[in-house]
């Protein structure tokens, strides 16, 4: 039998004005197990807390009920107080007689009765409380960043800067991501490479950072502070530690007709290649789909020419396992495929390009060295039509229901750059809305209109027809209420952006949740925007939703600070109110594991025979308290009643129900 003390707070007059606190204390003293009951002006005050402490010692209390304000307010305060005199903090319950009683009722009699009932329910619960001790787990002081774009790079640099080790896993042969493909950045128009490549170099030279390029995450085990991650290093057929990146092989390889991914297939590369001059690591990679040697066994030019002897045609995929305390997801985005948008003739004319392709066409490192010409006939375009929201804000099957966020600004940038470099070009931008919230963003847009004379037209292009060497653009101008027919030389489509295809399988590996658009869900949309609901998994960049470079960098920094906060701890103290399974009742059906959003439940086959001789083996559930967040979904799903939740056990809640309905 517990020895329970009840403490009723007046909260000045907040409670005492409508609740007869004396009567509450007196009545609750009659409850079985209650050996002490009192009331006081302000229980949360120093004196009030001392009163509780003294009573625990004097009365030898084993449990405490505080009738006061909401537990959301002072539960932690009171728990600390009882813990100070050696009582387990989870032996305390708070009856909410302020927010949920005195403040909402006027009739003293009614309110007092309700307060007594709420107090009774709390007493009934305390009777079933058991001391809980929060578990501790050690933290592996190393972070994994998945994705080596600007989000991953920034996050890794910030974590490394705080003195922790970081590994970057990047699926491409080089880090840098989409930003390497971008020519200029809005709203300052500084060159993307110029601001990115120094960071890439920093990443390569930082001794706390290790880059696994051309690699993928293939398995994730463990939980916050203790992840074990399997990494596949894809065979690049070049020894990374020996290759000097001289690039000779990439000039001599006889297989010249390999679509160049870096330029989005707008030109070709060799079968052995270094993606671009500033690649990190600057190491050649053989494209196995095109290499004659790998396909037919005949050629070997690169091997002969390589003075370092770095080529290794027999290289195999390598699989390794590493330990991490935290994982950052920075898998980024891709423009959607435009196959389903053939009204814009994307697949019918090479002169209809996506904005990212246009970026390459404008870039000094692009296929034409930055001289803007049409892909079809290499003539300078004189009329360019930009179409915004291609696939964005679209609720039909082929589109994306969200705003891709970056298109308004980059289209504006493209339009402006066209007019600046080629002043005799007519530039039209068809928009539904121009969305430019951001520092100096709207000013940037207005400059395009006012200073660069870009024709912004509210309306949408309905159809693009390639006819002769022109692209016939049919569109509406909603403000003048006209249908426009423009003979364009190029059409640039602002394709919606979507989460990278690798994100969905990765989310499954991480048991991190995603929304219907395959963007990772944050733990709280406003207050925990860089954490995944899965403890120890953090989000940076477009993996979480469309965002531009400044926002991505901001988020990556925030993400790093969260990771540092985690890695700075030697141990993690868990929430002790977690689920636990009664092995004797569990029938190993997996129902609980299926409903668990965190993957906290695993199964083990245990020997239940008395002599432990393996004659009675059963599969039983086991909850990892470090991963369980204590929602209790499994406790209800469990068909045999084996699952229960500490702090909110079935019996405790039942006893509260009983107390209330009595």
């Amino acid at each position, binding site marked *: 039998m517990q020895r329970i003390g009840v403490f009723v707070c007046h909260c000045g007059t907040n409670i005492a004005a409508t609740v007869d606190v004396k009567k509450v204390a007196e009545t609750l003293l009659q409850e079985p197990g209650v050996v002490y009951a009192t009331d006081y002006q302000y229980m949360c005050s120093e004196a009030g807390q001392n009163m509780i402490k003294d009573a625990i010692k004097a009365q030898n209390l084993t449990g405490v009920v505080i009738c006061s304000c*909401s*537990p*959301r307010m002072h539960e932690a305060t009171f728990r600390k107080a009882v813990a100070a005199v050696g009582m387990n903090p989870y032996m305390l319950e708070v009856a*909410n007689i*302020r*927010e*949920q*009683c005195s*403040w*909402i*009722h*006027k*009739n003293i009699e*009614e*309110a007092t*009765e*309700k307060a007594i*009932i*709420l107090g009774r*329910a709390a007493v009934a619960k305390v009777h079933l409380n058991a001391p809980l001790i929060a578990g501790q787990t050690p933290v592996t002081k190393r972070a994994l960043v998945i994705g080596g774009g600007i989000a991953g790079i920034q996050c890794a640099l910030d974590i490394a800067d705080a003195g922790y080790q970081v590994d970057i896993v990047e699926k491409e042969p080089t880090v840098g991501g989409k930003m390497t493909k971008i020519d200029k950045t809005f709203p300052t128009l500084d060159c993307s490479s110029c601001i990115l490549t120094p960071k890439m170099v920093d990443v390569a030279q930082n001794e706390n950072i290790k880059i696994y390029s051309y690699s993928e995450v293939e398995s994730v085990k463990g939980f916050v502070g203790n992840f074990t991650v399997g990494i596949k290093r894809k065979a690049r057929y070049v020894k990374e530690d020996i290759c000097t990146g001289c690039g000779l092989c990439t000039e001599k390889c006889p297989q010249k007709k390999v679509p160049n991914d870096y330029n989005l297939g707008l030109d070709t590369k060799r079968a052995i290649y270094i993606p671009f001059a500033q690649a990190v690591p600057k190491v050649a990679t053989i494209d196995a789909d095109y290499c004659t040697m790998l396909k037919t066994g005949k050629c070997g030019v690169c091997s002969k020419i390589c003075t370092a002897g770095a080529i290794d045609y027999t290289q195999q995929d390598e699989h390794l396992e590493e330990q991490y305390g935290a994982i950052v997801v920075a898998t980024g985005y891709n423009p959607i495929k435009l196959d389903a948008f053939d009204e814009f003739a994307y697949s019918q004319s090479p002169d209809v390009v996506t904005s990212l392709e246009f970026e390459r066409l404008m870039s000094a490192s692009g296929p034409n060295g930055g001289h803007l010409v049409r892909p079809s006939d290499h003539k300078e375009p004189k009329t360019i039509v930009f179409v915004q929201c291609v696939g964005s804000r679209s609720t039909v099957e082929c589109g994306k229901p969200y705003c891709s966020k970056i298109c308004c600004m980059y289209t504006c940038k493209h339009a402006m750059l066209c007019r600046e470099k080629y002043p005799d070009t007519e530039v039209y931008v068809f928009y539904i809305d121009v969305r430019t919230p951001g520092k100096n963003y709207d000013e940037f847009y207005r400059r395009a209109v006012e200073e660069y004379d870009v024709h912004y037209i509210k309306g949408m292009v309905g159809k693009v027809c390639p006819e002769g060497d022109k692209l016939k653009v049919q569109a509406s101008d909603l403000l003048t209420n006209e249908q426009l027919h423009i003979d364009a030389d190029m059409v640039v489509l602002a394709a919606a952006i979507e989460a990278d295809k690798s994100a969905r399988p990765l989310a499954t590996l991480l048991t991190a*949740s995603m929304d219907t658009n395959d963007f990772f*869900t944050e733990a709280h949309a406003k207050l925990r925007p860089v954490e995944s*609901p899965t403890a120890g998994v953090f989000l940076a960049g477009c993996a979480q939703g469309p965002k531009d470079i400044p926002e991505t960098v901001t988020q990556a920094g925030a993400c790093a600070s969260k990771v540092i906060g985690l890695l700075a701890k030697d141990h993690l103290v868990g929430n002790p*109110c977690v689920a636990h399974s009664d092995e004797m009742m569990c029938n190993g059906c997996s129902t609980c594991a299926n*409903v668990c*959003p965190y993957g906290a439940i695993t199964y083990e086959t245990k020997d239940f025979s008395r002599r432990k001789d393996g004659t009675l083996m059963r599969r039983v559930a086991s909850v990892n308290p470090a991963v369980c*967040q*204590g*929602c*209790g*979904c499994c*406790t*209800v*799903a469990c068909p045999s009643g084996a699952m229960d*939740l500490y*702090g*909110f056990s*079935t019996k405790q*809640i*039942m006893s*509260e*129900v*009983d107390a*209330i*309905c*009595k």
Partner: protein
Amino acid sequence: MQVEEKEFKPTIVAFCCNWCSYAGADLSGTNRLQYPANVKIIRIPCSCRLNPMFILRAFQRGADGVILCGCHPGDCHYTTGNYYARRRMTLLFSMLDFLGIEKERTRVEWVSAAEGQKFAETMNDFVATVTKLGENHRLEDLRCKKQ
């Protein structure tokens, strides 16, 4: 002999999710929005912690109505808990209906931490509905009857 008719005050149990509705109830308190005293709130970590047994127990012990408040769909603190709760309650409520406990005596309502107003309105409405239905005797365990 005339029996003085006592005003019927139903016993209502409200299960509230710690992250949203419980805070919503606190907010309606902070804003001094009144609702009847016969509503007693039990705090649970998530609407998915609500075992159907708790509701059966409540009716057995003489409750006249039971309401579950959770986070709005899509807003669950634990990502998916409220979807499970919604499915479970749909099944339970239709079974209770079959057993003669009117559908109006049970309810699931989504109340966020910011919806103090909605919490009070919901409770007022629910109490009024249950009051109209009168006492519940179905499932009641006579041994638990109030003297």
